[in-house]
């Protein structure tokens, strides 16, 4: 595996402490070693790209950072504190957002529901105590987010994700990550299905 660090922005470099660092990450699937002792540091504002051949272990490394996969050994530290993700929900609670290669969207559910899947907004008051969802708030925010990103001019936020094109689905996944990713946004092949213009937006 090859890792290439692309430092962007002025206040970036070895002078500051890394936000996220990994030491000696190992993951084996039976006889196959997907990750063999991976180390890296991620500094504030830095964009770190992971490059490698097919089967090099890029997705495994990413899953180890997002809690979707638990490494066999090695440590991940966030702002100097060692963290262990037992599930993707743990990573999300830390402000880690991921755009998965498989997009991780529920095709039969609508766009707004997908954006808020796992952290739905409840209504205020009694209905909220009864766990009733505030669908309008979610739809409004979802629309604002998609408009703000300018990724796709999706106007009907209530249509099921399966009725979207591949690029639009990816746009939904990217919008979700951008919306909630406070600490770190991890993207696994984020532009694989996007058109030229959307790719530029994502890279911005």
């Amino acid at each position, binding site marked *: 595996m090859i890792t290439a660090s692309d430092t962007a922005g002025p206040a970036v470099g070895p002078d500051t402490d890394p936000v996220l660092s990994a030491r000696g990450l190992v993951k084996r699937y039976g006889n196959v070693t997907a990750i063999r002792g991976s180390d890296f540091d991620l500094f504030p504002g830095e964009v770190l790209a992971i490059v490698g051949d097919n089967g090099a272990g890029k997705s495994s490394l990413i899953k180890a950072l997002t809690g*979707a996969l638990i490494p066999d050994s090695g440590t991940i530290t966030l702002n100097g504190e060692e963290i262990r993700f037992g599930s993707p929900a743990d990573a999300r609670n830390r402000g880690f957002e991921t755009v998965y290669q498989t997009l991780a969207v*529920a095709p039969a*559910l609508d766009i707004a*529901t997908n954006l808020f*899947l796992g952290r739905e907004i409840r209504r205020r008051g009694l209905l909220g105590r009864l766990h009733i969802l505030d669908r309008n708030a979610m739809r409004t925010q979802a629309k604002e987010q998609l408009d703000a990103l300018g990724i796709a001019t999706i106007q*009907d936020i209530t*249509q099921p994700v*399966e009725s979207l094109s591949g690029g639009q689905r990816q746009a939904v996944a990217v919008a979700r990550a951008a919306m909630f990713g406070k600490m770190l946004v991890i993207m696994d092949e984020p532009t694989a299905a996007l058109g030229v213009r959307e790719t530029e937006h994502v890279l911005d």
Partner: protein
Amino acid sequence: MATAESLAHELRSRGWNTIASLLNVTVEGREISGTWVCEIDDDNQHQPVDVNVYHYGPNGHVWQAGTTTHEARASLPKTPLGVRRIAGAETHCRDGGMATTQTRLGDSLKPNNAGVVFARNPALGPTVALLIAIAFFSIATNTFFNIDNFSAVVNQTTVIGALALGQTPIILTAGIDLANAAIAVFGTILITQLVSGGLPSPIGLAVGIVACGAIAMVSGLLVTQLRLPPFIVTLGMLAVMTAVTNLYSGGTTHPVPEGLLTWLGTQTYLFGGIPMTYGMGVTAILFAITWAALAKTAWGRHVYAIGDDPESARFTGINVRVNLVSVYIVAGIIYGFAAWIAMGRTPTADPNAYQTGNLDSITAVVIGGTSLFGGRGGVAGTIIGALIVAVLRSGLTQMGIDSNYQNLATGVLVIAAVAFDQLTRRRMS
């Protein structure tokens, strides 16, 4: 703003030889100006033709909304298929010779295709089927169209309807529960025995309902913790519960003590004339609560997401195992209520009752438009599905048709419902 002529020019420059028709497309009853359908390969009226759909962008750009093929020219003016395809198509914008790609999905391209409407509202098809069946039997017999008969039909669906109601969220997670009726029958025996043995009936009833929830929870734990297929787990639970029920009851029926346990069989007249039982009311309340839980809460959305794609659901931070186990617990509690409703219908706890209840409930769910592959459908369809089966049985009986033909009709309907589901899935993806 580009005009039809400039569009024609553009097309000719790209090598299209004919522009047979330029027309506006109507979407949801509104005419969308600036959306043009251009047809080529005009030689044969009955051959499928390739159609390119163009949409004018706000700056006079020509948006090409994808190529599609139509069965026949005659279908062009409405272009339902075309409109549907546009909704998901990548569009290409030609801007001063520089070709850029833009994903565009305007509200003008909202699908109005009947297939999409049916796919988005899985209960719609079954509702139409139910209305047709009611109309048919009302014409074919003198006895069917009658409020007493309707009430009897609804009353007949209460137990299977409640079992199907519990089954629905499980099937929405792409699971299945073959043990539901066996659990409910065990519930009737347990409650009857407890109350006959001297326990106050509210406590006996509560214990029975909780026990049903606990038994279904065991299925859920086996599915999530040991990762066994729900079909096998519940097939095993079916055999186990049938055996336990027979051992516990001594293989004989037990009279249900009168009072709270038989209270749901109480007849009343709604608005002075519509006969109904309390059991029908309780079934309706259960349906309403389950509907709200599935449609209006995060829990319900997660049930759908898990049925759609469990891996994606996990990636979005949903605790798939906890949600799945909770689905089985909810189902089990509903089976417990089904037991209560059953005791109201027949005041005898029979270990051999409802032996086909599991399959009948699956039939109701599937006919109601819920997909066996998970993620699609809901309890509204399940009510309709249960009613369709009951209406068919009642209507065919009143027409004097042998019960074997009733089973045949139900079987055909199940296969038709699953085939329809497969078809809509393929069209949507």
